[in-house]
Structures are given as C-alpha cells and as structure tokens.
C-alpha cells in the first residue's frame, strides 16, 4: 500500500466553533475513501483546509511525500488534488467543452507572447487541449453537450461536467463533495459506475457523501467525523456497526442498541 495523503492533527476554529479538532487520517493510493458524518460535522471544512481554501490552525497534510502548501489553492491543484463542490460551481457562461478546457489551464504553458504570435507550440497545445477536453466529456458521458452553455445543462449533467473539469487538472487525488446530492436513484447508479471507473483508471478518490448506501457500497475505507472529531476509520462493514457512529447519527438517546 502506498500512502498518498496523510492528514496529521488538523484543527480549524471559526470564532467559538471548533470545526475540526486533531483530525488525522490517511488515504492510500488507488482507494475510494469515504468521509461521512452528520450535518455540521466538519466534512466540508476538512475539504476546504485540504484544498487550500482555508488555512488550518494546526496540523499538516503530507501528499505524495511532501507537505502541501497552506492557503494556496492553485498550488495544491498543481500538486495533484482536484475538487468539486457541494453546490455545483461551473463557469456558467462557458460551454461544457470550455469548462473542461479551463480545467486544463494549469497544465498548459502558452504565455502572452505565444498567444499573440500564435506560434506552433501554442497552436498545437490548444489543439491537444481541445481534443483532451472532448475526450473527458466523453469519459463522463456528456460529449453530445460539448457546445452547450453549461448553465443550460441538466442538474445531473452539470455534476458530471464538474467532475470532468476536475479531471482536466490531471489529479492524483479527486475530492468529491457530495456528488450524489439531489440525484435520483438512476443518476446515483450512473455516478457510482463513473467513480469506480475513475478509480480503476488510477485516480484516488476522496468522497464526502450523505447517501450512506452509496458510501457503504462504494468506498474501500470510511472515516466518520462528528463535531469536528474523527470517531471511526475502517472498512464500511466495521464502521457500520461502530457504536459511536450509530450514536452520532441517531442521537444520544440510542444508548441501548
């Protein structure tokens, strides 16, 4: 097992609320890792700290052998971590294809001079980026909407597009923030297939999800957060029977199971 990401003692406080306290977990290369917990448990905060949107008060992330920069989202992406958002955030006035191409920005090299003179390297890079973006749309299954403005896509397709855009950054770790939110059973099934495909193609997946069925069926390992603390981390079958987890989800009254 190669360890891809290790979080060491992450803590984050917002005013009087300790959103995360001393959270440590590790994700192995090639696995689908689930992060679950009741509302307000700190899952999205963990995401935001990991991707550099927030700076942790304490702790550090070791990714692929080196510490991740703090509070610099673009450098985190460059290192190989991509994310999607709980509430879809696409570039609404661009087409699906352009959204994915924008995702490829960080892997492109053209500078102002190259763009102005349209030299060979720039033209070839642009051509390859277009091809690649189209391939990614095909990968998530929405290539027929390549030319559609993204705000006009259906909800499920917007979710897929967001994943394609994240994949365009060529990540080693793909962090999905509640990708199944608002999806019906069929769409969730398709999403599940897609996530498995992504993993089988060599991208490690970190998944925040409310849909317990999806998480338990899909993830190799699961960590549970409650009030900012990690209360369990194991394979789904074990976590499911953990008393602390059941208590967190069903409330304190459920002492005698």
């Amino acid at each position, binding site marked *: 097992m190669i360890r891809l990401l290790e979080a060491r003692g992450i803590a984050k406080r917002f005013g009087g609320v300790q959103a995360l306290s001393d959270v440590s977990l590790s994700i192995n290369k090639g696995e689908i890792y689930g992060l679950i917990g009741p509302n307000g448990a700190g899952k999205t905060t963990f995401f935001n700290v990991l*991707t550099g*949107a927030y700076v942790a008060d304490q702790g550090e992330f070791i990714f692929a052998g080196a510490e991740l920069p703090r509070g610099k*989202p*673009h450098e*985190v*992406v*460059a290192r190989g971590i*991509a*994310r999607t*958002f709980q509430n879809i*955030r*696409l*570039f*609404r*006035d*661009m*087409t699906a*294809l*352009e959204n994915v*191409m*924008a*995702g*490829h*920005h*960080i892997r*492109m090299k*053209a500078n*102002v001079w190259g*763009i*102005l003179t*349209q030299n*060979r*390297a*720039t*033209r*070839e890079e*642009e*051509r390859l*980026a*277009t*091809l690649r*973006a*189209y391939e990614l749309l095909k990968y998530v299954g929405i290539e027929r909407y*390549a*030319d559609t*403005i993204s705000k006009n896509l259906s909800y499920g397709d917007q979710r897929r597009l967001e994943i394609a*855009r*994240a994949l*365009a*950054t060529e990540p080693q770790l793909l962090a999905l923030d509640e990708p199944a939110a608002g999806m019906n059973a069929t769409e969730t099934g398709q999403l599940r297939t897609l996530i498995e495909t992504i993993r089988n193609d060599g991208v490690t997946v970190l998944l925040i999800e409310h849909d317990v069925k999806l998480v338990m069926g899909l993830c190799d390992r699961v960590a549970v957060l409650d009030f900012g603390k990690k209360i369990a981390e194991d394979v789904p079958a074990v976590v499911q029977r953990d008393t602390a987890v059941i208590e967190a989800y069903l409330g304190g009254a459920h002492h005698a199971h």
Partner: protein
Amino acid sequence: MNELAAVIPWLGTHKPRAARWVVIVLMITAPLIAAFFGRTWMRVLDFALLYVMLALGLNLVVGFAGLLDLGYIAFYAVGAYTWAFLASPHFGLHLPFWIVLPAGAAFAALAGLILGTPVLRLRGDYLAIVTLGFGEIVRIFMNNLNYPVNITNGPQGINALDPIIIFGWDISRNWQVTDNLSVNSLFFYYYAFLACVIGSVIFIQRMQVSRMGRAWAAIRDDDLAAKAIGINVRNVKLLAFSLGATFGGVAGGLFGAFQGFVSPESFSLMESIMVLAMVVFGGMGNLGGVIVGALILSFLPEVLRHHAVPLQQAVFGTVILDPEVLRLLIYALALILMMALRPAGLIPAHSRYSRPELLKAEPVPAEGRA
C-alpha cells in the same frame, strides 16, 4: 470582423459573406462618407476609433475578467502624457513615435500593475470605488504637478505635441496632390487608427480563445471554482488589468498626437463612465457589440451638438436644453432602456473561448519547434 458582420441585421445571419464585405467596404470608405458631411465629421470619426480602442481595452477588464474598473481613463491619461513628455517642446524631447507609443503602452501597463497589485484583492463594488479613486488621483496629479517642479504644466496642459511621423512622413499634414485637390490629414489619421484598432481586435481575439481568455472568463463566472481548478487568480487578474491598461495607453498616445494638446480635463471621471457605458451598451464581453456600442455612443453626442440647438430654436424659438445636458440625458436614457430591454447589451451574442473545429484539425507540423 466576423463579429461585426454578424451584427448587421438579417444580412449578418443569412448572408455572412456579403455581410463581411459590407463591413470591409464600410471600414475603407467611412472617411469618404464622413468627408461628404464635412471636416467636423471626419474628426468625429477619428475620435470614434480612439473610443473603440478604449472600449476594447476596457472590455478586456470588465467584460472578460469581470473586474469593474471605473478609473480606466487614467491609463489613457498615462499614454497621452507619456507622448507629451517624450515628444513635445515641453521637455524639448522629440522621440519618434515607434518609441513613444510603446513607451506609453508600457507605462500604462506598469500603472495597471502598480494599481492592480494591492487592489485586485477587492471585488465588485469595492474594486469599482478604489479604481474610481485612482482615476481621480491621476487626474489631480496631472493638474497639480506644476509646482514646485513643473512636470505636467498643470491645468494649462501641454501644447504642440509632435504628430505621428512615419518614416519622415508627417501624417498630420494635408497632402497637396494638385493645386485644387488635397487629401486631408484626417484621412491618414483614420487609417492609422484603423490599423491600430484592427491590430487590437486580432490581439484580443487571440487572447480570448486561449488559456488566458478562459481563465478570465472563469474568474468572472466563479472566482472560487477558478481557484479550485488551479488558476492563479491574482496573476490572471493582474494580466487582464495591465493588458487592458496597455490598450488605454496606446489610445492615449494616439490621442495626444492627434489632438496636439493634452490637459487634465480630458481625463475626467465622466470619460471613464462614458467608455464603460460604451462597453455595457454594446454588450459586455462581445467584441462586435463593444465596437458598435463605442461607435454609436461617440457619434450620438456629436449629432446632438450639431442638430439639437438649431432644432430647438426652430421648434421652440429658444434653446431649452443645452446639448451637453442633452448628452448626459441621452446616455442615461440609453443605459436605462438597455437595462430594461436588453440587459446583456445591444448585441448579446455568446462569446467563444474555444474553437471546437480544432477537434478535426490536423496536428500542427512539429518542424522548427524548440
């Protein structure tokens, strides 16, 4: 040009080739048509092209990158004053235009960087207020830097700026072909400005369909998501800001040379707002729209200036509304009508940031590649 052609009603959508020819012919013959109405209108036309350049530059900042800049005219001022410093009797320097114009552009870009570095953390309204302040600061500096050391000559402005001289040919002189036929210098200026505008359009189009253009659109549409896909938001914003400023600087230099005179009052807040109005009126982010917006809004006030007074005298016997007041009124009305009827601007066509036809393109030959 295709954008402009598409703007023509009916023809643009049904016969794009014909529409393109109409645009080309109009571009070439515009000064002749203007000359038919008189020299004033040729001047107006030349100025209109300068406004087109300004609007194109501001569109890059506001329309593409979504950064509301209310002090854009300051960069125009930097370009114009650079020309005044480097090519006029004021300091006794008379450098050629191919040094002065790039210098103006470079200084404007630098001003953009200097302003942008601290300010671009701000968003929306806050950014607008700070840039507005910056625009005024530049103007007030120009107004007051005549004491203790006279740099800008204060409110009197700087006189007798050098004209554009291309290989010894002074384009501000009329060309006496025969005794009773002469070609007015305004023609030459028109074509010089036209060349600059065409160059700008090509440049901006290339930027738009590139990783930079997409990054600008990304930060405009969703700042947070742009960060999440690895765009260095600060750098990309700075680039937009200083490139936009560059166009302002070039337009400013041309303005100085054309007018032969610069003074701080040409660079008031009202000018910034006018250029912004052109961008919004035409259709933010859409090159064809912005050009048409700039042309319409620079001709309209002139038409008013020439016809409002006689018309009012004929109808009411006296002048009730001063043309200057009328101009502001028309601007306000145009913007309000725009908001109500076409919130996306006159020509709200979708902007492209990619070329899907590349999917079928052959690989670019690799020979000679580093």
